[in-house]
């Protein structure tokens, strides 16, 4: 601001230097582009190298960790993972949990968001204030508390323990509420005059309009529950209920002292990144332009 004000007093002098500035800008663009390319390589290289290494042998991964092309590509790591380990079971569990959480959140978040945006009931502002307060509670602080409740309810070591606590999602409700607040009331009133009850108005009029917001919820829920780790750690200790994140984390932590087996671990990392990568590519534009609540710690 100050620069603009200060220089505004002597525009004539500065304007003469227009071409010089333009020249500088063009070289500036080249510099900017170069920096961008270097940074993009730095950001994408770790992913490329994990894909490449997952196709190498253990020995080659150690002797030649930099190369992006395996000398003798082999899918041994993938075969080992899929045939001789619990990996397929982990994938299955992660899929179950992710689908259940995403479906549940879409339904509950939109219902609660609608209620907070539209329906009049006593204590509405209190509920909203509580919601904002809950959003502020950090996840890792909840590990012990959640375990206590899961234990008390007697659902420890069950899919219910893995799924139910994740269905409560204050940020999603917040997003849906913001969306419903922006919908003009006229549409609902028309439906109401035609004799539709509140649930019918919600289900067949309002919800179909909420598609963009619902997609945001789907993306966030899918990504969040697929990548979740700490909750799964405290919700069960049975191998049959192991999810991908927890399984791979323990595979890594446990095997660290013995052999390295990097191709195997990186193959696991590659497979577990595929669903979110696909989701990311499909909804790329929406993800990078809507960011409400998409904050990862």
């Amino acid at each position, binding site marked *: 601001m100050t620069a603009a004000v200060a220089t505004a007093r002597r525009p004539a002098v500065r304007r003469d230097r227009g071409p010089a500035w333009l020249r500088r800008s063009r070289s500036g663009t080249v510099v900017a582009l170069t920096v961008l390319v270097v*940074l993009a390589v730095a950001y994408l290289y770790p992913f490329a190298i994990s894909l490449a290494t997952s196709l190498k042998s253990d020995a080659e991964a150690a002797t030649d960790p930099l190369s992006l092309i395996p000398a003798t590509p082999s899918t041994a790591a993938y075969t080992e993972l899929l045939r001789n380990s619990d990996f397929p079971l982990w994938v299955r569990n992660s899929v179950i949990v992710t689908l259940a959480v995403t479906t549940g959140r879409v339904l509950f978040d939109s219902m609660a968001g609608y209620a907070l945006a539209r329906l009049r009931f006593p204590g509405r502002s209190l509920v909203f204030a509580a919601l904002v307060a809950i959003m502020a509670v950090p996840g890792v602080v909840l590990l012990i508390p959640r375990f206590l409740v899961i234990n008390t309810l007697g659902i420890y070591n069950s899919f219910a323990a893995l799924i139910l606590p994740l269905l409560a999602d204050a940020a999603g409700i917040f997003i849906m509420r913001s969306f419903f607040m922006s919908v003009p009331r006229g549409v609902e009133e028309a439906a109401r005059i035609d004799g539709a009850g509140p649930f019918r108005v919600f289900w067949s009029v309002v919800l179909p309009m909420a598609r963009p917001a619902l997609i945001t919820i789907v993306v966030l829920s899918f990504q969040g529950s697929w990548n979740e780790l700490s909750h799964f750690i405290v919700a069960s200790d049975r191998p049959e209920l192991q999810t991908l994140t927890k399984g791979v984390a323990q595979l890594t932590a446990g095997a660290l002292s013995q052999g390295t087996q990097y191709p195997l671990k990186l193959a696991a990392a590659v497979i577990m990144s595929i669903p*979110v990568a696909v989701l990311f590519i499909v909804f790329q534009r929406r993800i990078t332009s809507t960011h409400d609540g998409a904050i990862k*710690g």
Partner: protein
Amino acid sequence: MFLAPAGVLLGLFLVVPIAMAFWVSISDWRGVGNPMTGSAQFVGATNYTELLGGDGLATKDFGRAMRNNVYYVLAVVPLQTILALTLAVLVHRRVVAGRGFFRSAFYFPSVTSSVAITVVFLFLFSATGAMNRLLAVLGVEGPNWFADPRGVVHLFLGALGVRAPYESGPLLLGLSWWNWISGPSVAMCVFIVLAVFTTSGTFMLLFLAALQHLPGEVEEAAVVDGATPWQRLRRITVPMLRPTLFTVITLGLIGTWQMFDQVYTGTGGTPGKTTLTPAYLSYQVSFEQQEWGRGAAIAFLLFAIIVACTLVGRRLLGEREDPR
């Protein structure tokens, strides 16, 4: 009726648990039976005083975890904010082609699982890994990253010839002043890089959204007036981004104090407990050592730190009310 499902779930898994955990934090529950039905005794603030004022292992571990996390926060928050702003300003330039590609490239690490990225970093920074191979090309012998507990400030002082002083008593939380000034360990530095790598993309999006909403006229006026790009950035863009800047810093503080996944996947707090964090310590003390009261007390202390960071952030944010 509409609220009921979400309300019950939020109450059951957020509000009730916090109350229960608070009870546990002032009890001596050791994981046997149900703490709510009489198998735990009230012990007052014992768990808290053992952590904060004692001179046993509990205090020392908490002190180490605090020291590690303080250095982690001090390094990660400024770095991720500056990098995110740099990325946003670069990507925002209209002249640059392929904006969408760059935006996606920088954001991609943010959507992938922290477990997967930690695995990749364990490989990149292993003793024979890509990073050391790269350093060898430059003629530098890289350290054994994840096995190196030496603090970087200690290393720096050591290079200057400053040695560790003979035994000095504990200064705070069971650690001597020499231990407090260690700086992040070499192993922790890898986690710092990892955190900057995974979060800068998210914060870049916040900055980008803010940049797109800035009125163009001021910038144009400055261009006409001959302000250099650097002047425009320093004097116009950054001051106008102030609210977003504070949001990013606050979210960064909240996020960095919650470091858990990477420690669980990568190091378990090793080497020399220099990657131990309060979040991981609270898990370890409760679930592995069955000292639930102390574990819950650590969680509440961590909660207090995070609330304090949020409040400071909100104060600095001033009167801006709409959360981004």
